[in-house]
């Protein structure tokens, strides 16, 4: 019998004595520290932007631009956060955004006007999510592989549809959404959509059975199964959700760019994963926050903006992004181990 004594296993995850700080407070504190440190990083970035380019950076139009750019990737990141919390990964988000954006802007689709474009974008996103979800949940495929396959084929299909051409949108009601006239209290509609997705995402994750099941599946899939949760169905729903977010993001992108292109959403998967990770989502699943992910998105978008304003090339941006990911994860590991 090698297993009779289970204590050896206990030794690795030490139980903090109840006499010290109450553990619940430690958890609360840690969550706060994480959010606060992200807010701190964002504040520092804004400071840097304000100092280096005081006139351009703090200009209302520029801030509106930053938030608008954050909206597209932000919506994708909310879906990605759910998937990662459940212990999965979705590498196909960028490709789905591309496919949804070109499918929704074909000449045939545009004939149906605003509704046709919106519906098609969302339907294509959900459809791709359905394929991912079925392959992973019921086909037993590893999420990495299934979504990698989707990445390849969705991009291919997008290229096939457009034949490499940019599809200009000629539906005015769609284009108008991106105009300054459509801003509500100075906030672009795209940003409002992003805000709504964020709030709904937060509520779903923290206040609904769906969110609980997501966390349970990611934290311990076997325990979730033995507790009576339908783990496979939950996984299916999660990839559907990610696909839905991609569809919404594709629509936002169509509004923003006024066109659909097969190169849209390039490397969104990496940006979304990176934002979720620096936001404190565990890549192994079981823990993560919507607020953290959204802050991660804002940090990345702000960096891009500041670098662009200072005429720094994108290669420098990439290096800085990489360094931030490493730093964020190291800091989080530290705060996690000290508490």
């Amino acid at each position, binding site marked *: *019998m090698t297993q009779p004594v289970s204590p*050896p296993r*206990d030794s690795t995850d030490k139980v903090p004595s109840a006499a010290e700080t109450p*553990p619940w407070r430690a958890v609360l504190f840690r969550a706060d520290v994480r959010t606060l440190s992200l807010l701190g990083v964002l504040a520092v970035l804004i400071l840097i932007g304000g100092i280096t380019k005081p006139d351009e950076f703090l200009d209302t139009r520029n801030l509106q631009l930053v938030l608008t750019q954050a909206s597209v990737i932000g919506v994708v990141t909310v879906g990605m956060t759910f998937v990662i919390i459940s212990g999965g990964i979705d590498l196909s988000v960028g490709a789905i955004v591309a496919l949804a954006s070109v499918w929704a802007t074909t000449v045939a689709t545009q004939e149906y006007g605003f509704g046709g474009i919106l519906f098609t974008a969302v339907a294509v996103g959900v459809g791709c999510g359905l394929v991912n979800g079925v392959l992973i949940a019921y086909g037993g495929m590893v999420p990495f592989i299934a979504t990698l396959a989707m990445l390849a084929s969705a991009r291919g299909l997008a290229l096939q549809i457009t034949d490499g051409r940019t599809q200009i949108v000629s539906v005015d009601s769609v284009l108008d959404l991106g105009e300054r006239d459509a801003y509500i209290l100075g906030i672009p509609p795209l940003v409002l959509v992003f805000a709504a997705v964020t709030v709904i995402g937060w509520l779903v994750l923290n*206040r609904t059975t769906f969110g609980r099941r997501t966390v349970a599946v990611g934290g311990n899939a076997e*325990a979730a199964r*033995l507790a009576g*949760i339908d783990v496979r169905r939950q996984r299916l729903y999660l990839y559907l959700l990610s696909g839905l977010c991609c569809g919404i993001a594709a629509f936002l992108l169509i509004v923003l760019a006024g066109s659909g292109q097969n190169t849209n959403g390039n490397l969104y998967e990496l940006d979304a994963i990176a934002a979720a990770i620096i936001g404190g989502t565990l890549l192994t699943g079981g823990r993560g926050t919507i607020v953290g992910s959204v802050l991660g998105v804002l940090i990345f978008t702000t960096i891009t903006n500041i670098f662009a304003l200072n005429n720094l090339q994108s290669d420098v941006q990439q290096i800085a992004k990489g360094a931030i990911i490493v730093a964020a994860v190291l800091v989080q590991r530290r705060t996690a181990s000290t508490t």
Partner: protein
Amino acid sequence: MAPEPPLLSMSGITKSFPGVRALDGVDLDVQAGEVHCLLGQNGAGKSTLIKVLAGAHQPDTGTIRWRSEEVTLRSPIAAMRLGIATIYQELDLVEHLSVAENVHLGHEPTAAGFVVRGKVARDSTAQLLKRLGHPEIDPGRLVGELSAAHQQIVSMARALSHEVRLIVMDEPSAALDPDEVDNLFRIVGDLTADGVAVVYISHRLEEIRRIGDRVTVLKDGRAVAGGLPAKSTPTSEVVALMTGRNVEYVFPRRPTAAPQGEPVLTVEGLSREGEFAPLDLQVRPGEIVGLAGLVGSGRSEILETVYGARKPDTGRVLVDGRPLKPGSVRAAVSAGLGLAPEERKAQALLMLESVTRNVSVSSMSRFARVGWIDRGAELGAARAATRELSLRPDNPDVPVRTLSGGNQQKAVLARWLLRGCRVLLLDEPTRGVDVGARAELYAVIRRLADEGLAVLLVSSEVPEVLGLADRVLVLREGTVVHTAPARELDEHRVLDLVMEGSPAS
């Protein structure tokens, strides 16, 4: 008794884990060239002791002497350098590497810094395999393609690829059929003839009689007998040593009248190939039925199959006379079954989550309208369930990982209590639970039964099954060998049954 000083001498070894004292001053002397057997029930401390010897655990106190010199085994590598090799029961082989690569893992033959591939490694591996009586194993094959028995041989070859003076074998015969056991014994004989010492752990008394020289019996983290002659010590004495306890568990009183009423859980001819033979049993409301048997006797597999976590090959499970959909946990849970699994942390708990969320996870929809959770109602219900079981601390917001083993188990029980489950399946309910907290857990289990729950209990601790259950099924290698009311059995008889397969005369 050899006159020369022992090869290995461990004295006063203690080792504590949070909440449990696994070793409590153990002494062990091993002579060169002897087969020294370690006996003890589950939880007696055998595993911890050999992990100390292998350098995997550091003892809290105590000294280890190796050839009369005091040594510290800081790491498995330190132990290996001295010539101590350990073959664990779960084989630690890399399935996707070849036999030769596994054997030389960690000390690959190198030339100018490059791993030597091919012939040299294969030849030396082939030689080792030949010495072990299995020249037919191809050193180039992937380990994952080999049978369990051959993997065992590879594991042994790896141990022997070092300069070895002492080999620890943890239940090496468990995965072997009789022919292979004979071969194993021949190898052990060859090794000891070369002066290598073998520390042999087994549950099978007949094996210990065949190859053992001396026996050390562990119980509750102490060596209750050291160096008994393996061949001549009577079985009754060995069993008495294994069972005589320092700690008397306090078991709750059984109800005087046997539970009546229709069985709520009925199992008919349930079996799984290679795990357990067709099984029939019934559990009535208010009744605790115990399954006693050693690890590997199919106990956990039975519970998990009843629960739908494994799909049966034959047979069915009925609740209130209605058959459950086979292999569906959800069907079992809806019908009122609840499982407290053996590996609480791996199979039951969401370690990052609060007690409330762990308790409510199986009944979430009850607190939710269209998916929206009423957290006040959830917290209230979780608090009521945990209070009923006196879970401490009395604050369901704390993370479940901060609880002691006993209270974690109560959180699992509270989950099913909240769900309103009617049949509770308990797999090793007191594993990892402090001795002091056990009595309380026993009282809780009995009270739940008194309130009308049907309980199916599995434990490798015979006194626990006998003390808690109303009726006991004794298992040996997947087959029920005996069924009786618990009060008609005692520990000796059950141990005889599980070790020998037939009642001792």
